């Protein structure tokens, strides 16, 4: 193993972890509510712009902005869910997709109007910008932080879903909504909270992504495809599936960009279509 390959593997894994944070919420909401939410990237963008604004206008430290990014994205998502989404829970896939595409268009236009179409760079604190040398290998500190954060989030989600009372309700609602209602679970409330958490995670991902992939108004559409791939291939409502798929996606993308840049995203799309035809419910589907 040459240092080059190890470092590519690590960067790819860190990138994959970023994709995981961005898309795990979509996986849960899509699997749970059966709602085709293409506006998930817009929620991520809200988080990103929240961080940029706080750091620029009020000189907040980067880490202090992350919880705010989470809360902002979650709040906007809940408002949208109450006002728009809930009207279409029983509508067709197409109507849901179109409604959320409309929201994506509006969010892109609004972001361009308020912040301009340029990239929004932020000044990271010095202690997180360097690289760490371990033996022959060197790793970016920020990427190490990304991996740790993602692992922590995964642990919290898995524990929360498997061992808490709320997690049990969520699983019940995913598996059989009518039965869950019959047992006295307030499914609407469970949905709203889960949706808020998932969207908040997207907002957090958007804030974390600024340093890695940048932030501009097209973020909502550009990374939507990646999020959808993670969900579609990983299988709905499967945290394990989303984790593995996101990690693989990040590593494949990093390697193909480095070794065969002329092929571009072509391989990625081809693999996605192939996998979906082979297993339409995803590689790690729960059912």
């Amino acid at each position, binding site marked *: 193993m040459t240092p080059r390959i190890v470092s590519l593997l690590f960067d790819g894994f860190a990138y994959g972890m970023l994709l995981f944070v961005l898309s795990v919420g979509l996986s849960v909401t*899509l699997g749970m509510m059966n709602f*085709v939410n293409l506006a998930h990237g817009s929620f991520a963008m809200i988080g990103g712009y929240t961080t940029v604004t706080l750091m620029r206008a009020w000189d907040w430290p980067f880490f202090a902005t992350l919880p705010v990014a989470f809360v902002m994205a979650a709040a906007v998502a809940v408002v949208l869910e109450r006002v*728009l989404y809930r*009207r*279409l829970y029983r*509508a*067709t*896939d*197409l*109507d849901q*997709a*179109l*409604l959320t*595409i*409309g*929201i*994506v*268009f*509006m*969010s*892109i*236009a*609004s972001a*361009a*109007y308020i912040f301009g*179409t340029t990239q929004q760079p932020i000044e990271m604190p010095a202690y997180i910008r360097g690289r760490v040398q371990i033996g022959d290998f060197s790793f970016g500190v920020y990427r190490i932080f990304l991996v740790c954060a993602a692992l922590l989030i995964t642990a919290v989600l898995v524990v929360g879903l498997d061992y808490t009372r709320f997690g049990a309700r969520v699983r019940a609602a995913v598996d059989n909504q009518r039965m869950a209602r019959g047992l006295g679970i307030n499914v609407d409330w469970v949905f709203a909270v889960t949706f808020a958490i998932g969207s908040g995670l997207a907002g957090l991902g958007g804030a974390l992504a600024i340093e890695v992939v940048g932030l501009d*108004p097209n973020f909502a559409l550009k990374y939507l*495809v990646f999020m*959808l*791939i993670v969900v*579609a291939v990983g299988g*709905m409502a499967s945290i394990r599936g989303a984790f593995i798929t996101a990690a693989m996606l990040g590593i494949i993308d990093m390697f193909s960009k480095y070794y065969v840049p*002329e*092929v*571009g*995203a*072509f391989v990625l*799309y*081809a693999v*996605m*279509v192939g996998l*979906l*035809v082979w297993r*339409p*419910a995803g590689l790690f589907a729960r059912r």
Partner: protein
Amino acid sequence: MSETATPSAPQTAPARAGAPADPQAFLREGVRWRWFETVFWPLTLLPFFVAETYLILASQIAITALFAISLDLIVGYSGLVSLGHAVFFGFGAYTAGILSKYGWGEPLSGLLAATLAATLLGYLTSFIIARITHFALIMVTLGLCLLMFELANKAHWLTGGDDGLQGMSMWPIFGIFEFDLYGCTAYAYSLIALFLSFLVIRRVINSPFGLSLRGMRENVRRMPAIGASIRKRIRVIYTISAGFAGLAGGLLAQTTQFVALDALSFQRSAETLVMLILGGAGQLYGGIVGAILFLVARDQLAGMNPQFWYFWLGLLLVLVIIFLPNGILGSLAKLTARRRRKP
């Protein structure tokens, strides 16, 4: 045959309650030309006389309307979802464009080639499409579109990539009608193509096969139970729809003598869906009405910042989905039906 043989008939039949029940009546009723149709088509000739400066826009509208109608076949009539229909539009456009760039500029055969190429692509992909449903279907149609976009983007030597396909030269139609700068020939050509395609599509929709498609849209489980294979029908309609999309793409390439990468983009798929939903999916004229409204509005607002355009587009989409679930034509039809039912 008894009355129960045509379960749909009672919806249209009450006006002629005295007539004997006829299983073919429902289908014949659909084929009959309505008064607004005989008014609408002559009106499409108006741009030649009153708005010569808008002939180019008019031909764009005719082409886009044809594309929207082809999408309507699968989205509106068969209840399938596609976020990547532009793949066939772009494939047709590039076929026609590349043919003419490399020395064969005869329009009609070029258009035929574009249609056949897209039909073939549609036939091949239809095997994939027929296998999957719901979210996976959305993702696969989107994925195929992105795949083709990347392919055209990377194949710079053939398609011109980002710069678009330049250097097409079209021969005159029948050797007589030159493509002029004002778009007179272009509009006539597109309009004739639209009208002829429309006649074919109209016939398909009002055939028993078209009726079975609507049955599939209404209840996808019950159709196999009455002996109608779903997958076969999906494959057939998807192939037909792809062919007409390719025809529209070929028309665009020939009339503008240029193919941009944008012809294959997700944005084009999404915009066309917006037009269709705005006009009314599954309404036959929904695509045409949507294309007229959409393109005229964009032309009028062209001076506006494109970002604003996208904002209003998004807002329009949200409002239409929430308040006009059947589009403009669908809501109109419901209104008139309600008034007719009142004594």
